[in-house]
């Protein structure tokens, strides 16, 4: 980065916005700044921003971003809610570790489809899911101990090939009941996959026995239920949910026959129910847009080829990268991006590139680093990893990615359950969280020797100039360095050189060019 900024400073027509654009695209796609080499290549003209961006979408950190995007929009990380417990064959695993594995199952599947360059619609049609050792043990999936941590595996319980729609992570997040009859799942299909929200009208519900009648007869009800019930019917066979208490009770009682399905591996699919749920609940035949579909697999295939799915996907990607509600994405923008996705044979990496390289995206006002990326970004700059281990065997916590002990919602993210929209503006708790992260990371950088403790004014000035380049991706002017030195000097008066460097580094990490992009 040093050379890049020097070259920019010396060039006949320096274009510092090129650096800013590269930072924005890199943080959007990977959660971290470009490397010095990448910025040097950009400045020398050896690589264009698009060429760099194409490298970034094959970076493993892009896969994590894909998971983060879908976690927020599909609300699939719900670590504040009870999960199947670490007992029986899973005894000894941290509760938080197991929770994280289970929540990541559908997200890892989506990541796999996207990073393999497969058509995005496969997230709704693949007969596979992703499992690590914990997921495999909980849900009874094959898993090779000699293979990678996360493996793409096929279901062996007879459930339909429907990708995300057939993951236990999706079913556990959007739970059903004898009353709900898979309608919560159907509503999520509509809202998340085709961007269609159901607006409930003024429903004059009567006594319970008339509730079902109203669903099929009252015009105030049928408007929605005509749409939602055929989708819900496609989920027939999927278990409504399994609770932590059910598993605990079954495991403790030795898994007697009536409770065997609640023991590990937990049974979540029932072929018999798939054939009878619809009739038992009075649901219509499975369908999509008034056309019959062959169960959940048929629904997945119908959705994957529906133009509305492409447009909604485009809308969601743009909304997440631009940090705006999907409803705010212009229809024309969504349509153009959907064309890009279609032209790329459904390769969602191309969609992501189209979004972040769009001049309209690059011209947006400053965006704020998401809680999920704060740690990785600061680790890139300082080497400090932001994690913690609560008392009581919960396991390690990635502070920005969880809410049970972490700070995701307090930093403006969603907890997936009660907090379902990211904050529209910086909050006081986000600010306090960044102060925690910045001061800890600054201390680590000093104490680990990554940032030397200098005291001679000239050396300090040059070190600060270098920090502006490395951390803030800017060429500092002399006034800025004077301000830094004043901060350094005042801190030195209150303590020693170590203290002064911690103060200055903390300030730099709280700069808008670090916490924003």
């Amino acid at each position, binding site marked *: 980065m040093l050379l890049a900024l020097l070259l920019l400073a010396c060039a006949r027509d320096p274009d510092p916005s090129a650096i800013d654009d590269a930072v924005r695209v890199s943080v959007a796609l990977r959660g971290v700044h470009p490397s010095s080499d990448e910025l040097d290549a950009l400045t020398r003209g050896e690589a264009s921003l698009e060429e760099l961006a194409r490298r970034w979408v094959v970076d493993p950190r892009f896969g994590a971003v894909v998971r983060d995007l879908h976690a927020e929009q599909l609300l699939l990380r719900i670590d504040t809610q009870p999960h199947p417990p670490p007992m029986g064959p899973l005894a000894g695993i941290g509760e938080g570790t197991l929770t994280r594995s289970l929540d990541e199952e559908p997200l890892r599947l989506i990541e796999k489809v996207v990073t393999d360059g497969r058509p995005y619609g496969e997230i709704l049609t693949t007969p596979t899911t992703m499992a690590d050792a914990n997921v495999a043990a909980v849900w009874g999936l094959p898993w090779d101990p000699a293979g990678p941590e996360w493996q793409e595996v096929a279901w062996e319980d007879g459930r339909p090939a429907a990708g995300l729609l057939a993951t236990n992570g999706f079913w556990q997040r959007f739970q059903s009941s*004898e*009353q709900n009859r898979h309608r919560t799942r159907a509503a999520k299909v509509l809202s998340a996959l085709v961007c269609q929200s159901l607006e409930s009208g003024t*429903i004059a519900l009567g006594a319970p026995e008339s509730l079902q009648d109203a669903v099929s007869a009252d015009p105030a009800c049928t408007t929605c239920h005509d749409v939602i019930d055929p989708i819900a019917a496609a989920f027939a066979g999927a278990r409504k949910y399994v609770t932590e208490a059910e598993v605990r009770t079954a495991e403790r009682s030795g898994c007697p026959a009536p409770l065997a399905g609640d023991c590990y591996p937990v049974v979540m699919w029932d072929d018999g129910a798939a054939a009878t749920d619809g009739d038992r609940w009075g649901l219509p035949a499975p369908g999509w847009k008034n056309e019959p579909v062959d169960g959940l697999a048929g629904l997945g295939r119908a959705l994957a080829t529906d133009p509305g799915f492409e447009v909604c996907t485009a809308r969601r990607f743009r909304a997440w990268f631009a940090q705006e509600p999907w409803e705010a994405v212009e229809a024309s923008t969504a349509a153009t991006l959907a064309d890009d996705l279609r032209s790329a044979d459904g390769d969602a990496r191309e969609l992501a590139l189209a979004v972040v390289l769009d001049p309209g995206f690059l011209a947006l006002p400053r965006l704020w680093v998401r809680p999920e990326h704060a740690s990785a970004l600061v680790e890139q700059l300082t080497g400090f990893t932001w994690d913690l*281990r609560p008392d009581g065997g919960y396991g390690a916590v990635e502070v920005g990615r969880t809410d049970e*002990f972490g700070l995701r919602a307090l930093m403006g993210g969603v907890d997936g359950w009660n907090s379902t929209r990211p904050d529209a503006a910086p909050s006081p708790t986000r600010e306090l969280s960044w102060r925690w992260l910045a001061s800890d990371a600054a201390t680590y950088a000093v104490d680990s020797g990554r940032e030397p403790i200098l005291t001679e004014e000239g050396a300090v000035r040059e070190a600060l100039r270098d920090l502006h380049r490395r951390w803030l991706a800017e060429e500092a002017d002399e006034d800025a360095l004077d301000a830094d030195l004043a*901060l350094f000097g005042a801190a030195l008066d209150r303590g020693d050189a170590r203290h002064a460097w911690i*103060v200055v580094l903390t300030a730099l990490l709280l700069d808008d060019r670090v916490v924003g992009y």
Partner: protein
Amino acid sequence: MRRRDLLAGMLASSAGCRVLPLEARAATGAPHLIVVHADGGWDPTFALDPKPGLALGGPWPDVDPEDPDDVEQVVSWGEIRALCNDVRRPYVRRYFDNWAHRTTVVPGLWVGTLSHWEGKDRVLAGTGVDGSPDVTAITGGTLGTGPIGAVDLSGVGRPGPFASAVARAGVRGQLRALLDPASRFVRADGSARPDPGLEDTDWDAIEAWRRGRSGGDRDPAAARADALWRERGLLLDALPLGRRNGLADDLELAATLIEAGTCHAVLVSTSSNFDTHADARQQHGSWNELLGGLGILARRLEDRGLLDRTLVLVVSELGRSPERNEDGGTHHWPYTAAMLLGADVGGHRSLGGTDDRLVGVPCDQGTGRPSATGEPLRYDALIAGVLEAVGVDPGTWLPGVRPLRGFRG
């Protein structure tokens, strides 16, 4: 020393240096707001909406015929009719004995959904439009003159555009970790956290440097963060890091925050879950805890002279179906109930209502009184009425909605 006394002592000791005088902070004169959310969808027939005719629902299936004290009894306090059981839910009677004269109940509140998420949007924000701010965020963000507009102790808040004015506590008291570095957990590898050793003077210098970098502009969230930091003593004492607070503790903290002028509005949620699809008997304990906590809150507010200046809204996102299912539980129901207490709330009053099938009776949306030409009391009329009562123009947030005013005066 009891925690309450300790808090009072801290207030007294900190008033001179950290906390603005209450009079100065209440310059607008607008009532404060505390919203208590009963999480999961309560069954109002256990307390606020007695339906003795529901032989297969409500609390009656649980009565032990061998226990002469285990009796469900409808008791009236003016217009309020509540169902009491001095064995299973003693705090219901106790609450109304003490506070019926300051309370309005609203059975038969229509929410028009069977979904928790939509129901929460509607009873907290007054609208099903996703992303809309909840009533405490609006109130605190609009009227708050203290350090923080609103504090969300519940985790169910919807700050929307008022994010910079709302402080979340976190489901396990994480706000404490933000305000007390010494309380933070060790790192994942078991090593101690780095100790930056930064004092307030260092942070002031850092903030001054940041202001200089941004041309003098100050992010309002940063200013709010400073204010929270300065007044952290209140929260440090009351927030247990690593576990969830009980309802009574959160209600106590809500009163303390209002009293100290730290914030203008507080959102609290029950720690027990009313979502009893199986085993509806759990409603007894949940109602008991809720009404017991509300009694403590009311007492605390009155003792401190705040009950006349604080509106308390108690509401749940759903009701429960009138008959128990095969699991002994009840499912969701689109008619719920609400309670209002405190500032300008008429006592001994009951608005709305349900028929024998637990369907809301037609009412005038403004008065809340039965009207043959009306419709069941709506969630948006209630929230609009609350906004108006605390001094916020409801038309800004819920245009076209006629506010419920029948609970006032």
